[in-house]
């Protein structure tokens, strides 16, 4: 199971800025290892976020997103105490969901 994400959600007015740090290799499939062999592509393809259980954002990523990815987005209608959940799924089918409370 992949390492947990770090999710920080900060409310300002009726919006919350959500910052996420994910732990993932994000191998592009272009890199060669020390033996000269291509390291197979392994990267997050799908990302979604929900506010109090309702999906508010989905995204698709390619292998060019940096390793240990960072993402930021702004949710409308969020206030302190609300729950933000972020999920990702990679091209090998591995996935992860983590939750945070809006502060």
């Amino acid at each position, binding site marked *: 199971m992949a390492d947990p994400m770090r999710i920080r959600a900060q409310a300002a007015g009726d919006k919350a800025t959500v910052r996420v740090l994910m732990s993932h290799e994000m191998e592009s499939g272009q890199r060669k290892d020390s033996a000269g062999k291509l390291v197979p592509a392994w990267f997050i393809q799908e990302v979604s976020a929900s506010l109090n259980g309702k999906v508010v954002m989905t995204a698709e990523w390619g292998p060019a997103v940096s390793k*240990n990815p960072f993402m930021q987005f702004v949710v409308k209608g969020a206030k302190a105490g609300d729950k933000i959940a972020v999920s990702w799924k990679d091209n090998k089918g591995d996935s992860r969901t983590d939750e945070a409370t809006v502060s």
Partner: protein
Amino acid sequence: MKRWTLATSAFCAIICSTASLAQSDSEKAIDEYRAMIADGNPADLWEAKGEDLWKKKAGPKNASLEKCDLGLGPGVLKGAYVQLPRYFADAGKVMDVEMRLSYCMRTLQGKEVKDSAYNKDDHKDIIALATYVVTLSKGMPVNVPQEHAEEKRMYDLGKQAFFYRAGPYDFACATCHNADGKRIRLQGLPNLTKNGPAGRAFTSWPAYRVSNSQLWPMQQRLNDCLRLQRFPHPKFGSEATVALSVFMGVTGKGVPSLAPTIKR
């Protein structure tokens, strides 16, 4: 003598070709880049892991590290990092945060700690723990002690090591780091003989290195500097590394701690 001249001229060719004393547009742009990636530092992932390891019961003694004494008393974390390295009577030597954590893993948890290879085996845990510990001193002024005789000895040794020229290029740390305005390609080299740069360099590690996506603690960074100087690589816990760290810390007294940071 000839070798030194060749080395210096090759070196100056790199540096002097792009040197300018005032901060150039490129340097300003790079500062902006560094500020942009500072928020959302993947080091946070190691910090979370470190906090877990600090609190988790482990080892034959089935104990957590919460009673580890980092110099301010058992379990006192806030401000601990900025007063390390320091002398520890129970260990009989000057230790930095990495060595002290390793010591606590051994004594409190009864573990046999495999820490000799950087970023491998138990050293990974030490790095995560160190990242957690340093975060709790963020913004606090560097205050590396110089009271015990051993602490003073380490400072003297560090100062000596800093200016010690050796290796096939006749480099010392000072070759790159003893003056303002030096640069390698677009990378400005901090003058580590001055308080501000020394303090910032001292508290910049542990850092997340973007170029290899690894979290490097201070000892590993110094090890790599020495490798680039074509010196023999010191082992983990080597007096040479700790001494250089003490020298930088004392020179950087009072500077607010930055760690953990993000570096190229």
